[in-house]
């Protein structure tokens, strides 16, 4: 059963994409660790972390694509799942600091000592263990998505209404995490991390390993989503996107299909957030900003929603562009980003990958038509449908 699922998930594009990503997982750390700093092919550590960050963004975009591209649910709250995963990881990293914080408290993180707290809040228990934190990284966003989706999809909140309430959800979380008494470090968030799994988080080797982990996570998620969208389940998902009532009248419980995709997607976003936090060294409530969620949407749109490698390409391109742009003309980045939103929706609705695929499909059709014509000779008279 599982094998057939996996087998179906591999087509040529996915095989190539997975190979490229896994190749990067080997090559980039190797070039960073094994070459001398003055070697022409040397990848400096800051770039390893930067690329690692892009990979986590790519994973987030892929997660969004699963629900938006394949199921038509435009979530404007995916940054919330990302941030929740990030916070779960951040809590683990905070507990790893132990007595090395500024206040030297072996149990309480610095900000709690600062707020004069005497005990660790109950929801911080267990985060000193990596396996527990890793479980929470997927469970917390997954549970939130499940509960939120359960209510929303069951009462058939659709389209822009759903978008707006997902935005309200992340906005409410943003406000909540800004509060000091929530116990997540308030405004400043969680930072000053020291170790991850016993390795120094600043060390070159750890950075390279985090990059590799991000790449592997992305590759695995790609295989998973590919398997999902190529199964009958995925076809129904697309059916829901294109003709929801038809799917319903065929006897499918649309809300269950949406809920499953939404929850899996939120979990993937959580994993992305968890890999993001150790690489950038901080997680704060700003990650819940509704604007972040919408940025994820534009990465996906640029690359091509409804394709699997589109969002990955889009996330890397837009964020690469952002890094270059904000360094060169910081004033104009928002103009560029805003322009990108407008231009992509107007002129490139299928995104880069979608448009390329469209061209390829049309060329194939044209060739096929030409071949048919040749086979049938001059007698072929059937008009080709204009649609």
């Amino acid at each position, binding site marked *: 059963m599982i094998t057939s699922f996996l087998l179906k998930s591999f087509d040529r594009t996915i095989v190539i994409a997975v190979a490229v990503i896994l190749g990067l997982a080997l090559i980039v750390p190797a070039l960073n660790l094994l070459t001398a700093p003055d070697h022409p092919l040397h990848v400096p550590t800051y770039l390893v972390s930067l690329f690692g960050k892009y990979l986590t963004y790519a994973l987030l975009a892929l997660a969004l694509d699963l629900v938006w591209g394949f199921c038509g649910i435009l979530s404007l709250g995916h940054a919330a799942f990302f941030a929740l995963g990030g916070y779960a990881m951040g809590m683990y990293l905070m507990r790893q600091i132990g007595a090395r914080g500024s206040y030297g408290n072996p149990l309480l993180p610095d900000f709690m000592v600062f707020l004069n707290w005497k005990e660790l809040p109950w929801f911080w228990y267990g985060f000193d263990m990596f396996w527990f934190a890793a479980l929470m990284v997927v469970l917390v966003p997954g549970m939130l998505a499940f509960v939120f989706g359960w209510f929303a999809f069951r*009462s058939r*909140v659709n389209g*822009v209404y759903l978008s707006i309430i997902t935005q309200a959800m992340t906005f*409410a979380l943003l*406000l*909540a995490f800004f509060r000091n008494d929530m116990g997540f470090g308030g405004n400043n968030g969680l930072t000053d991390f020291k170790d991850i799994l016993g390795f120094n988080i600043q060390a070159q080797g750890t950075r390279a390993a985090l990059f590799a982990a991000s790449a592997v996570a992305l590759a695995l998620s790609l295989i998973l989503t590919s398997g999902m969208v190529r199964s009958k389940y995925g076809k129904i998902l697309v059916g829901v996107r294109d003709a929801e009532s038809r799917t319903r009248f065929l006897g499918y419980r649309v809300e269950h299909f949406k809920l499953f995709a939404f929850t899996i997607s939120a979990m993937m976003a959580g994993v992305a957030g968890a890999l993001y936090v150790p690489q950038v060294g901080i997680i704060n409530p700003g990650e819940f900003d509704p604007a972040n969620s919408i940025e994820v949407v534009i990465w996906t749109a640029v690359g091509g929603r409804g394709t699997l490698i589109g969002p990955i390409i889009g996330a890397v391109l837009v964020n690469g562009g952002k890094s270059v742009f904000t360094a060169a003309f910081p004033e104009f980045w928002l103009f560029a980003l805003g322009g990108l939103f*407008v231009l992509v929706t*107007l002129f490139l609705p299928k995104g880069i990958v979608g448009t390329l695929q469209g061209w390829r499909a049309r060329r194939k059709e044209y060739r096929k038509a030409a071949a048919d014509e040749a086979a049938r000779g001059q007698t072929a008279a059937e008009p080709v449908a204009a649609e």
Partner: protein
Amino acid sequence: MLMRLAYRSLQSLLVTFCLFITVFATDLRAEDDLRAMINALGEGNFSQTAKQVEALAKTGDPKIVPALEALAAGDLYQRKSDKQVFLTKSSAGNLVLIDPLSGEEVGTEASGALAKIKVNNSLRRTVRAALGGLTLMSPDAGVRLQAAQTLLRAPSADALEQVETALAAETDGRVKTVLERARAAALLVSDRPDGEKKAAIAIIGKAGGQDSLSLLSAALASADDTLKPDIEAAIADIQDRQALWAAGQNVWYGLSLGSVLLLAAIGLAITFGVMGIINMAHGEMVMLGAYTTFVVQEVIRTSFPGLFDWSLAIALPLAFLVTGAVGLAIERGIIRFLYGRPLETLLATWGISLILQQAVRTIFGPTNREVGNPSWMSGAFELGGLTITWNRLWIIVFALAVFAALLFLLKKTPMGLQMRAVTQNRRMASSMGIRTPWVDALTFALGSGIAGIAGVALSQIDNVSPNLGQGYIIDSFMVVVFGGVGNLWGTLVGAFTLGILNKFLEPYAGAVLGKILVLVLIILFIQKRPRGLFALKGRAVEA
């Protein structure tokens, strides 16, 4: 040393002598006494000064009022050279000396030559009470009122007789009420019989307010068992009334927040509610309206300062035109290509909002810009136990006026008829000869223009910065969705419901948690009624 002292005494004697032969011959004796007493204020410690103040107060002469006031304010100085006491005002590093009795300027001294007469809080209270007694008999009713209020705030048994005398002579109704309360307050701390005290408690209890509450609480601490029940009842009564007023104040704050939400959402009720366009740049239209106000005020400040009170009236039509034109450009340039694709419209308009924000940031800078309140929008007044600020009141009125105007436009004018026709059945409207693309463009421009005039109003109560719009966009969508899309009345009810709900949650949950709760409630509400409070029903909406 002794010589100098003798010389100075001689000098002061000479001065006194001169005064004696020149002016106020008849008052000389009294005035000389007063002057001596005032000069004595500079001697000794706080309690001695306090005794002097009381002695001065006993004279009952209104001439000493400026000196006592200056003492309380810390403006009374003693000249080190001759121990003379003067009122002062500072002037270019020096102090101008003012005679304490005549009020005339009598010279300047370097501040080093003078010693400030120090006051502490208990001395200040003594001074205030003394002043209260003095001014109670002033011919000016305003002065008497102030004096009575001062006494009410710091009651003392000593002042009781003074107050009673004043009360007997008082003719002004307002002053009389306050005096009665002051008398009651003084009576409470005196040793009069319990019967009188009970009446006094009733008077204070009836007056209500925070001051009365603290008076009664103070009295409760020292009261005997016969009075305690009365005081407790009066306190409970005041607290009940205060709770009621607090609820009233919350309603008022809620209405005020509701009117802000209504203003922000009402343009959206057109573009989103009527046309179904998700305009994420709506907040930026509000922001542009606010910046238009800023520009208008800048021009007025530099060129026509006299027109400042008219600045909002000038800004209103301009903001409507500016944002309406921007809206028109957005509709014609971008949105019209995206009809029927709401999610794409959402993304494109979000892009526009980013561009507009950055454009304003580039032109006007990232910091808050100052937008002033015209005089008729500043200040506040009291209504019973409510404090009502003029700007909030005007914004409520304005929001309702805009709502009414819009309702009229949509229901009673040909333009509104065409708008409704196009939104209900585009094909039919088009075949009836309505130019649907222009109706779309104008409707969108109208919604944007209304957002602009909302910006004019909101510039009065919010920081005018490039991020102004961001703060409103989620709230506006919540209001429209909560109220029911496509229903203006729903938007009205939605805005005020959310505003009041928010303000009632705030005292229990705090501002941030209150807002979070409201958001969660709306999210839950939308699950229950996906189409809002006043939903359209039937087959048409499914299509």
